[in-house]
């Protein structure tokens, strides 16, 4: 199984100036920030890109102000949320329309994204080849044929591999919940 660093360990390495750590930080949270911009607040691609870059710029500049390294994910979520709202208000000011910003609906999506990140963590724990197969199928929307070609495995076996991998992720999630439950 892959050995993954905790968010706190990664933040600590970033603070210490480890050049590889920042790359990993962006890699780890880029999907989350991207999804908040796109799915949560439905920003157009060019607006989402601006917010995405600004989130990481501020994170880079202010990582030392984070009170608890463990809290980096909610901190990033709040930062992204605030910048998305600012952007939408700016757009509304420049081009008024009837549609109103629905913060409650966006916050519902943010809750789902937190669940999705927990699933993603479990998938990272399960590691390859499951991570690769499930990522290609669910996140990159690749066909069985494409996955088979890219990973050099028979396309006819992809469906059963996906099923087995999903089962492993579920077991990983169940194991975490049992471990975190008081005895």
């Amino acid at each position, binding site marked *: 199984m892959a050995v993954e660093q905790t968010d706190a360990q990664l933040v600590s390495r970033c603070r210490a100036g480890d050049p590889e750590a920042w790359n990993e930080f962006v890699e780890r949270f*880029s999907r989350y920030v*991207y999804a908040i911009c796109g799915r949560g607040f439905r920003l157009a691609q060019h607006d989402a890109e601006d917010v995405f*870059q600004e989130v990481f710029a501020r994170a880079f500049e202010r990582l030392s102000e984070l009170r608890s390294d463990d809290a980096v994910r909610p901190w990033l979520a709040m930062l992204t949320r605030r910048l998305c709202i600012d952007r939408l208000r700016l757009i509304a000011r420049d081009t008024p329309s009837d549609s109103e910003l629905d913060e409650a609906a966006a916050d519902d999506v943010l809750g789902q994204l*937190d669940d999705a990140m*927990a699933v*993603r963590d479990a998938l990272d724990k399960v590691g390859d080849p499951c991570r690769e197969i499930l990522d290609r199928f669910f*996140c990159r929307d690749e066909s069985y044929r494409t996955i088979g070609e890219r990973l050099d495995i028979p396309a006819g076996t992809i469906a059963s591999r996906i099923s087995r991998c999903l089962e492993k*992720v*579920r077991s990983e999630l169940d194991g975490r*919940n049992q471990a975190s439950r008081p005895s």
Partner: protein
Amino acid sequence: MREMNGFDEEQIGRLLRLLPPAPEGWVRAAQELPAARATLDELVARAEQDAEFQLQLRADLERAVAAAGYDPSPFVVSRLRRLLEEV
């Protein structure tokens, strides 16, 4: 972590679909922030010592940054613009 019990395979698949990868170019640009920060520091130091360069930045920021041999990335341009406004 929120309680995830009871999530079946279908729900796990649905949740995974919510997190597609961000465009590669965006990720790369964010990863280059430490280098951009170093560029910014150099440009600020030069602008503080060179009044002519500061005038060029105020006249056409992106062109002046590029002419000085630096990449006028959005991070560098936005931060530099903010700093110039404050001076």
